[in-house]
């Protein structure tokens, strides 16, 4: 099943506030955030805040696009 995305604004204490909820089969699979310019080497990338499925590592890399994240989460489980 292809994941679906829903844009949200995060109430975070950092400038990283542009978030996306990732659903699969109507269930929340992950929360990802688009990184702000406080991360000089990662600005604009998607950071995995939380996952609820079974993924093999605690802190995945930050992805350039949501498509890359989707490939990763699909293959990681």
């Amino acid at each position, binding site marked *: 099943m292809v994941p679906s995305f829903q844009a949200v604004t995060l109430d*975070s*204490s*950092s*400038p*990283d506030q542009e978030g996306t909820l990732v659903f699969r089969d109507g269930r929340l699979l992950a929360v990802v955030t688009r*990184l702000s310019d*406080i*991360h000089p080497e*990662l600005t604009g990338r998607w*950071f995995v805040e939380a996952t609820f499925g079974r993924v*093999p*590592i*605690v*802190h995945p890399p*930050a992805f350039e696009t949501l498509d890359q994240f989707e490939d990763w989460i699909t293959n990681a489980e």
Partner: protein
Amino acid sequence: MFTVKTASANHDVVKQGEVATNLQVLLDGYACRYKITAGGARQIVSFHVPGDILDAQQLLLGCADHFVQTITSVTIGAVPLAEFRRIMKLRPNVAEALWRDTLIDASIYREWVLNVGKRDMTSRIAHMLCEFTFRRENAGRGPPEQWELPMTQHKIADATGLSAVHINRALHELARSGVIASDRPEVEIIDWLQLRRIGDFGPSYLHRAP
């Protein structure tokens, strides 16, 4: 019998599985001790400052069960293990000092378990900064107010069980609230007492000699 060697940054000076022949003491520079999961994820379990013994474990145990890696270029003093064991038998005060050092190490590890397990992101990083600041000052490496942070954000992340993104956020938050000024690699601690409060840091667990 006492030899001195140098090593560059990011070099493993203790390797898991190896049997040591020397006791190594860090004389200059900084290092970290780490373990890795089967999947390759690294957890740094301690930072080391000049004066620290890097592999006391080798005195009585078999091969190393972890790694020690340099953070900066370092100078290391090395004493043959057999010679050091002989000195320990001849001089009980040397054996007692090593016993004390081992107990303090254990105390620091207890504090790190508490830090990684029960403190939130900003508090955890503040605590790590406080401990490193305190220990580097005790090692005679300068006052706590301003110094160059020798470790990368990835190493701080691996020491606190967080990601480099979390480290950026926490340093940004500490800078925004006026506790530190961070223009890496320089770190300026503006409000030392507030940093200690945020980090829930009290130095008693370091058991500094009276």
